[in-house]
């Protein structure tokens, strides 16, 4: 079901953001932190299918929108990594999450809870791919751009990458960000799940086997 949660806003105060919530009264409640940017679209169906399987196995799960992302009305350009980390921690507390499943670059903003960081990339790798996509698109349009020049400009005044307007602060934070799972969660490699890595696919797809494998991994470890 769709629910609201009070999300901290840039500049203070709270405003409601949406969340998908299943089984919120269960003893185990897994906060799912989706990947940033385009991978969020590629993985959303998989994540919702994992939530259904967790619910079927008696495990609660919630997938909150971060500010500036998905259905959020907050402007993306004003968001920062620190702001998202704070928002994710507030969501974890609001839903009384006992565990976290941070997926891909979602691991860069995950709250410190026991759980799993699934195939987390460094923030610099996220930016490298977005920068490269922009350079490829520019070249097709007959413009020459370079990573170095774009990075310098982005650190100064922000940049639009892949249709996402990123502020200078967020860009700078991403350049240095790495997943900090060792403190509480464990890294989950894609080879443990198997099949084609869903974030690699040019067209969003969905594999029931992958949803089964991911949900089963979580449920087995929660019950161990």
């Amino acid at each position, binding site marked *: 079901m769709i629910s609201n949660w009070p999300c901290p806003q840039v500049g203070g105060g709270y405003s409601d953001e949406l969340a998908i919530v299943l089984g919120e009264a269960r003893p185990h409640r897994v906060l799912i932190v989706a990947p940033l940017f385009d991978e969020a679209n590629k993985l959303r169906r998989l994540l919702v299918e994992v939530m259904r399987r967790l619910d079927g196995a008696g495990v609660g799960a919630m997938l909150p929108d971060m500010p500036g992302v998905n259905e959020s009305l907050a402007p993306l350009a004003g968001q920062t990594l620190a702001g998202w980390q704070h928002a994710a921690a507030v969501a974890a507390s609001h839903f009384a999450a006992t565990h976290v499943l941070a997926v891909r670059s979602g691991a860069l903003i995950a709250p410190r809870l026991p759980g799993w960081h699934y195939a987390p990339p460094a923030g610099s790798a996220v930016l490298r791919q977005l920068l490269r996509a922009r350079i490829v698109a520019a070249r097709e349009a007959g413009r020459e751009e370079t990573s170095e020049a774009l990075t310098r400009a982005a650190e100064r005044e922000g940049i639009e990458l892949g249709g996402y307007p990123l502020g200078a602060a967020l860009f700078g934070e991403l350049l240095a960000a790495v997943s900090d799972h060792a403190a509480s969660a464990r890294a989950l490699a894609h080879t443990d799940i198997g099949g084609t890595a869903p974030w690699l696919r*040019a067209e969003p797809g969905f594999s029931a086997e992958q949803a089964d494998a991911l949900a089963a991994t979580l449920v087995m470890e929660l019950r161990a």
Partner: protein
Amino acid sequence: MHHHSADHQEHDSAALDTMLRAILTDVLGLKLGQAAAFTPQTDLFGALPELDSMAVAGLLTEIEDRAGIIVEDDEVDGELLETYGSLLAFVRAKRAGA
């Protein structure tokens, strides 16, 4: 010694070919075996509508990771991804220089 080294290179080259087909299958969501039918003349960039700029970026990043090479900005042009053969030749040349 020389003979042994040539064997090794041939093995590496065949492994690169297999790996590149696997990456294309993953990135483009191809059906199993579809990439096995690629020839050096198979059109990539122009013929595969799935290959938008984001997919090209993902493809190159994945190739870098799995082949252990770095692709420079100025090496990414239309010719690189024109055919399967041009992409394979590029990755082989990069590996030889790595």
